[in-house]
């Protein structure tokens, strides 16, 4: 199965212009709030109408502005898990799930499916409860059961964990991953959290200002985001302007140092990025003296701010994240940090914010 999306929609000053193809598996759409992620899902579901474009799911055209096709949401077979789960508050768990089975004429089969998903989603004993009586995690499972009994061809999750307490999140992430893998078809998950995207999704689309600028397998995206915006969205904190020096070497202009890379440096490189986790005093490569300028303490990690000795003035300090037990004790002014060449990210694009 596959989902093909190529749509445009104008909303005041904002312009949504999205085009991508998703295959079986979980694709994440990662981007800051207000970048058009939810609007994209709404257009696919058919509750919003794009100005122009084409949406195709599993060979069926859902929307086509040229061919004047615009299937009603009821005809699209798209499962949509809303951020607030959108359970019907006046119906019990059982009635809510049965709403997903109204097209099934056989009563016995409806009951069988209901029982199967109540079991699968661990909702036994809650059938008579109203949504307001359930915890956030239970509500999410009811909403998923209601969607899955309807046998959608596409599953879309809008910020699936944002309404949950943080300690529940990790547990439910694991559950959700299992459910989505069991479902097997195309899933889209919208999130602004790079951790959720990393844990849940096999591919990630990075979205900004209404369009998708990068679409890569998750591991590859984090290892080599390619663009400054992509590196920033995947959590990279340290950037410098850069100039190519050789096939595997570049100069970090804002840091006054030369860096060796593991991947060939692209001709049009404009920046270099280094994630805060990837500095190491023990690494002999790309090793340069630094001056420590301050630190922020977190529960399990410390953030140490530093500058390269050769760093020109007027440039921001760098961030180094280090687990507490590895934090250098009694550090004096003379200290040196290295970076493994594989962790030097050569980046393109100039819209660094």
């Amino acid at each position, binding site marked *: 199965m596959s989902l093909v999306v190529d749509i445009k929609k104008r909303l005041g000053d904002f312009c949504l212009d999205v085009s991508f193809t998703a295959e079986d598996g979980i694709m994440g759409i990662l981007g800051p709030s207000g970048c058009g992620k939810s609007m994209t899902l709404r257009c696919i579901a058919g509750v919003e109408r794009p100005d122009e474009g084409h949406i195709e799911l599993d060979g069926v055209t859902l929307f086509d502005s040229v061919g004047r096709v615009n299937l009603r949401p*009821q005809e699209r077979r798209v499962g949509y898990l809303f951020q607030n789960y959108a359970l019907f508050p006046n119906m019990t768990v059982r009635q809510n799930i049965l709403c997903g089975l109204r097209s099934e004429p056989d009563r016995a089969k409806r009951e069988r499916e209901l029982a199967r998903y109540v079991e699968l989603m661990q909702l036994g004993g809650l059938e008579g409860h109203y949504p307001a009586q359930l915890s956030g995690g239970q509500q999410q499972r009811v909403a998923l059961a209601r969607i899955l009994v309807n046998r959608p061809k596409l599953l879309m999750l809008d910020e699936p964990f944002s309404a949950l307490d943080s300690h529940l999140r990790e547990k439910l992430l694991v559950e959700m991953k299992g459910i989505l893998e069991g479902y097997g078809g195309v899933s889209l998950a919208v999130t602004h959290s790079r951790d959720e995207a990393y844990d849940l999704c096999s591919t990630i689309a990075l979205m900004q200002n209404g369009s998708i600028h990068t679409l890569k397998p998750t591991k590859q995206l984090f290892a080599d985001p390619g663009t400054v915006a992509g590196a920033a969205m995947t959590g990279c904190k340290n950037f410098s302007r850069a100039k190519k020096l050789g096939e595997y070497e570049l100069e970090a202009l804002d840091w006054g140092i030369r860096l060796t890379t593991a991947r060939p440096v692209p001709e049009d490189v404009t920046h270099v990025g280094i994630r805060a986790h990837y500095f190491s005093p023990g690494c002999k490569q790309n090793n340069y003296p630094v001056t420590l300028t301050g630190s922020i303490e977190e529960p399990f990690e410390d953030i140490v701010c530093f500058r390269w000795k050769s760093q020109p003035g007027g440039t921001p300090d760098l961030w180094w994240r280090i687990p507490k037990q590895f934090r250098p004790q009694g550090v004096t002014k003379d200290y040196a940090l290295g970076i493994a060449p594989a962790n030097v990210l050569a980046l393109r694009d100039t819209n660094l914010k």
Partner: protein
Amino acid sequence: MDWYPLINSLRIAAISSVIVFFAGIFCAYYVAKLPRVLKGVLDVVLTLPLVLPPTVVGYFLLLIFGVQRPVGMWLDTIGIRFVMTWYGGVITAAVVAFPLMYRTARGAFESFDSTLAYSGQTLGLSNSFIFWRIRMPYCRQGILAGTVLAFARALGEYGATSMLIGYTPGRTATISTSVYQYWRTGDDRSAMIWVLVNLAISAVVLLTVNLLEKKQRGGAR
């Protein structure tokens, strides 16, 4: 004692409430979906009877339904006459009470979480199922309040009613027109009886609403 005004008032209020219930909900639902300019204009038109003096409303209704007027004349040919008949009172009560239902229903619909409708649609539920089984129960508090307000207003309608259907004992007399007539003719005792009847009905209606609301709040918990 002639109980005709009570029966007449109750049937006028009941029938006009039913009309206003459906018309108010229908308008509230569809006006909310219109483009902004049209919505603004219609909103003003539909709310006008609330702010106009009832006599002005009555005057407009006479312009439409008067037996010398085109609409009134045409209705007359098919045997319907709203002037000086009790069912003319249904028209005046409905027109005057309509804005109360329309505005409270619209307020209730505007507070509706539209993702509930969207999720219903993606689950394949028909729009009428979503309307009657999800939207209406969700908004029931506001709709109930609107219905009761409309009923109370219809029951107490005087100005437009007296202009369109007048006061004929045993034919068009309502509680409110009777109170005025008895007072005008110096029959204070009869006027007082109808005042007390009116008070009793209003008290019962308000009490019922309070009980219903309490029950609902208890049930929702």
